[in-house]
């Protein structure tokens, strides 16, 4: 039985709703009242959500094996023939949508969280200028993101990929009057572009290797005509043309991962995300926490079949993920901007996800993606609410003691903080624990120390740091003595309902979101993993498959205790440093001034990048400009001119003395000869007439004897 139904057949409506309203906003939005803007934009996202949910339910109605729905709207890019795996193929990238378990998760997260954030934005942006523009961009983002997650081929995914990048650019630069905002937008776009080149090259490599960019040909009327990557890969593996660890697959996987590092802010391309906090807070929540930044994770998961065949790439993913996780977490410790802390936390959590992907625990990665989107969105929205309450103040050092002042914000915020710290039974605990468990399970127990153990250790340490800085944040904002500037103190107010209700819903999700995938040892089936399994299954189970299930109950508990313990340790440390002895943390900082400086300055990465790349490119630009002006124009063009002038001077000399001399000589000779001839040239025309007549007379005299012949021929 194949999936069908209204919602599936109208899958294309899901991205279309926001697109229509986005176009509406950007064309005539300025003339619409705010209420209409809110109605249209939030309504369209809601419609998308309803359609998405409907589609998911209709997909769930069929057997797990058949849970794929794919529709091709039209052929999009048809540039002609290219060599494919089996000869010449006509390369076609279509505009089509694919709904399988993986995209189900994504589409629900995107539309659901997106809807909540939209609702939140009504309140948050209520007093900002450019309301229509904000919602227009947001809806455009929704369209792009939905295109990304629903795309049935890599190229369309790339459309969404670039689209979300664009919207990110626009939304980061929403306060375009601020230079820092505009700069941050530009930085985000360009850094993303760097990743995109890798992605694009990966697409090329996929296209040339498989002759197609379509993910799968499942559920298409003619799977032969519409080849899919998955099927082709499987066929090629079957034929022995590609093997486990084939260099080309590694290449593809690495190139795609470059794209993922850009979009998902991994080392070394994470630098744009902290800056991106210049955008309005809902944007940070939606784009830079819940959805867009997870696109890289989604994409890697989507291409899991290839990654599973590329162990080197997997390792790279895992290592990069782990590095990012601890690196970003360490930077979060020293930040004083509430949003920056959250931004680094996001990077760190994304690192977690990649760690999961890198060890082959794709479903765990996606699971963490989902839970993270709940609690991180909640954190951002809560932070937004705090900022809103403090009339725009973002510095942690100027907050404190808000626990009871804004209860509707602070309670959910605590839940989210607990969730991200990994305290059971909140969502973060389950997802993080699953990841750590998978990492640990890859550990070859015959070795004392192998890379997986090391990665696991990093993960655990990161979990501790995470708990520490999150509670540092929490304590500094909500507990302790108020450090709020006095003139702001009296203006502190709870946010409107439109902002707090989404917080509560998200808090609920942060609590319960993890229960989809209760650990096996609790006697539960991993529902989430099972659901995703068909979509993430590799082409061959036996090769590169993830060895799951070697854990014992004991080990499982041990691991859990370890992670919970270290989280508790982090919380305790934060409590000590920031709540119990508020002066202590500065002493600690003073004790290690270098480390502190390093952390405060984010390891000087931006500066290093500036010095290494940005300024070099600028120098190069200046140099090339000089090359153009001096070398090509100066030496080449002007040189040619100069050469021409020199030659002309030489030839002038030659002309003057040699050629002209000869000419003059000839002229003088002619002049001399002309003296007798000149006699006839009187300048008086009658003398010429005489000559003409004379000539006539001579001619007639000469030919006269023919005259009778001429006359005879008169008839």
């Amino acid at each position, binding site marked *: 039985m194949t999936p069908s139904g209204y919602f599936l057949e109208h899958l294309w409506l899901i991205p279309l709703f926001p697109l229509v309203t986005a176009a509406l906003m950007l064309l005539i939005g300025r003339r619409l009242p705010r209420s209409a803007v809110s109605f249209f934009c939030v309504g369209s996202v809601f419609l998308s959500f309803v359609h998405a949910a409907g589609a998911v339910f209709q997909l769930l109605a069929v057997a797990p094996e058949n849970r794929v729905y794919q529709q091709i709207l039209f052929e999009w890019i048809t540039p002609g023939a290219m060599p494919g795996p089996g000869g010449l193929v006509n390369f076609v990238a279509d505009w089509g949508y694919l709904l399988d378990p993986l995209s189900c998760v994504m589409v629900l997260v995107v539309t659901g969280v997106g809807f909540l954030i939209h609702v939140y934005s009504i309140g948050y942006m209520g007093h900002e200028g450019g309301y229509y523009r904000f919602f227009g961009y947001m809806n455009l983002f929704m369209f792009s993101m939905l295109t990304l997650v629903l795309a049935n081929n890599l190229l369309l995914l790339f459309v969404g990929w670039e689209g979300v990048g664009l919207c990110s650019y626009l939304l980061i630069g929403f306060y375009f009057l601020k230079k820092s905002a505009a700069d941050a937008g530009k930085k985000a776009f360009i850094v993303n572009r760097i990743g995109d080149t890798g992605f694009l090259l990966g697409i090329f490599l996929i296209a040339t290797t498989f002759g197609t960019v379509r993910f799968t040909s499942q559920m298409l009327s003619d799977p032969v005509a519409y080849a899919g990557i998955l099927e082709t890969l499987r066929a090629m593996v079957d034929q022995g043309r590609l093997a486990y660890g084939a260099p080309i697959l590694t290449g593809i996987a690495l190139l795609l991962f470059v794209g993922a590092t850009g979009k998902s802010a991994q080392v070394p391309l994470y630098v744009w995300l902290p800056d991106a906090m210049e955008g309005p807070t809902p944007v940070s929540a939606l784009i830079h926490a819940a959805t867009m930044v997870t696109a890289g994770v989604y994409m890697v998961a989507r291409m899991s079949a290839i990654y599973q065949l590329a162990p080197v790439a997997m390792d790279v993913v895992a290592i990069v993920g782990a590095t990012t996780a601890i690196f970003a977490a360490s930077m979060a410790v020293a930040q004083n901007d509430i949003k920056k802390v959250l931004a680094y936390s996001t990077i760190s959590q994304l690192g977690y996800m990649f760690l999961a992907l890198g060890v082959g625990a794709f479903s765990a990665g996606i699971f963490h993606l989902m839970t993270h989107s709940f609690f991180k969105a909640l954190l951002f929205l809560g932070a937004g609410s705090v900022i809103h309450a403090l009339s725009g103040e973002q510095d942690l050092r100027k907050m404190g003691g808000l626990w009871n002042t804004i209860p509707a914000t602070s309670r959910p915020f605590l839940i989210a903080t607990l969730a991200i710290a990994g305290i059971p039974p909140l969502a973060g605990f389950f997802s993080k624990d699953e990841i750590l468990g998978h990492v640990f399970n890859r550990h070859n127990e015959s070795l004392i120390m192998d890379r997986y153990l090391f990665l696991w250790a990093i993960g655990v340490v990161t979990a501790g740091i995470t708990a520490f800085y999150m509670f540092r944040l929490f304590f500094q904002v909500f507990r302790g003595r108020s450090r709020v500037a006095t003139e702001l103190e009296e203006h502190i107010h709870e946010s409107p309902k439109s902002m707090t209700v989404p917080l509560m819903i998200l808090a609920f999700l942060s609590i319960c979101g993890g229960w989809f995938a209760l650990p096996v040892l609790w006697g539960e089936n991993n529902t989430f993993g099972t659901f995703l399994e068909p979509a993430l299954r590799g082409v061959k189970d036996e090769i590169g498959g993830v060895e799951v299930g070697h854990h014992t109950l004991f080990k499982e508990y041990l691991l859990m205790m370890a992670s919970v313990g270290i989280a508790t340790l982090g919380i305790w440390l934060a409590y000590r440093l920031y709540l119990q002895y508020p002066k202590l943390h500065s002493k600690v900082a003073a004790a290690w001034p270098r480390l502190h400086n390093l952390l405060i300055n984010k390891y000087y990465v931006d500066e290093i990048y500036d010095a290494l790349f940005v300024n070099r490119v600028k120098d190069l630009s200046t140099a090339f400009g000089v090359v153009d002006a001096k070398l090509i124009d100066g030496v080449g063009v002007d040189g040619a001119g100069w050469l021409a002038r020199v030659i002309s001077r030489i030839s002038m000399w030659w002309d003057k003395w040699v050629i002209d001399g000869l000419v003059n000589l000839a002229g003088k000779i002619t002049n001399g000869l002309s003296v007798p001839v000149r006699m006839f*040239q009187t*300048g*008086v*025309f009658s003398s010429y*007439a005489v000559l003409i007549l004379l000539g006539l007379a001579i001619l007639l005299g000469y030919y006269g004897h023919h005259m009778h012949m001429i006359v005879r021929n*008169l008839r």
Partner: protein
Amino acid sequence: MMPIGYYLFLSMALFLIGAIGVITRRNVIVVLMSIELILNAVNINLVAFSRIFGDVAGQVFALFIIADAAAEAVVGLGIIIAFFRNRETVLEDEMDLLKW
């Protein structure tokens, strides 16, 4: 019907008289008139032959010649007026701008 020789002789006479006028007279206007005379002599020939051959083509060309003569006279006289205005003379041996 007159034999054509008469016309040819007449034409020749007018032509030669015109030619004499062109080459001997000093007054440019008279020279121009002499040229007109020459053209006229040609016309006589054309019309006479046209009559002999019973073909109006000759007359067509005579007509063209008349038009041409008109054009020539107009331009010539224009030049003379311009010249007279500048030089106060119409004597052709004072018009030696051709010799440079």
